[in-house]
């Protein structure tokens, strides 16, 4: 058993694909139409090309309720690792991304939290230097 795929719910798949590739900088891997929706996955440009993130429609009311609840409570839906959180913070801020938490140290890691414009907060974290 391996962890190769995870997912995040998004309120609009077109908007999500734009944001996750053009703003976050991920690379599209799959984009397969399935009825009204698409099976879309992205991978990180500088990481493992076989570890995918699926951008899933939040069309099911159950999923949407969960997603909206997390956002209202300020809880990130997922977290992405970055090499330099301060640099990412400045880069994303310049692109108009909204942060609900500026980079701050928490123990050995540094965290920031931003909105992905698709109904989620995303935690960016810089792991401790080896």
């Amino acid at each position, binding site marked *: 058993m391996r962890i190769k795929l995870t*997912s995040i*719910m998004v*309120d*609009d798949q077109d*908007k999500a694909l734009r*944001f996750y590739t053009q703003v976050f900088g991920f690379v599209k891997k*799959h984009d*397969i*139409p*399935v*009825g*009204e*929706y*698409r*099976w879309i996955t992205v991978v990180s440009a500088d990481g493992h090309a076989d570890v995918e993130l*699926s951008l*899933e*429609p*939040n*069309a*099911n*009311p*159950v*999923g949407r309720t969960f997603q*909206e609840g997390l*956002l*209202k409570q*300020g809880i990130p839906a997922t977290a992405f690792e970055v090499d330099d959180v301060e640099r990412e913070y400045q880069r994303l801020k310049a692109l*108009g*991304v*909204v*942060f*609900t*938490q*500026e980079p701050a140290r928490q123990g050995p890691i540094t965290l920031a939290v931003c*909105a992905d*414009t*698709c*109904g989620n907060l995303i935690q960016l974290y810089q792991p401790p230097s080896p």
Partner: protein
Amino acid sequence: MFTNEALVRLCRARDVLCEVHDRTLTIDEVAREAAMSPFHFIRRFSAVFGDTPHQVRIKARLDRARHLLVDGERSVTEICMEVGFSSHGSFSTLFARRMGVSPSEYRRRARSMIAVPGTASTHLFPACLSLMGPAFAILEKQHISRSGRVGACE
């Protein structure tokens, strides 16, 4: 930076915008509830949600209409009124622009996908990886069909 209170106010504003029954809602009213000027409200809302308040409201109305078309028995005109449109024409035009088919055609196609009446198909309202299997089945079918065509030419 955004405070959590500002985020919560924007989330509440989105909830209000998504309540499709109230036809008379204005941006000024929603902005006031969010304790922001209309200018700041639209700017901040769009930065967090990626859409303007107006776009979110239209999407919510069309989304509600989709659910009613699939699950309910009301006529297209009744649904149009129910989701806050005053003109059947503008509702049908917006719906067709977003979904690619008219509301009545959408209803017909959607219902043909539902095996048990009253249960929405996971194709129509997917979540939690339910698209993965169908997507790869489609991909395999396309692959086989392409290979078949190549084979036929050889």
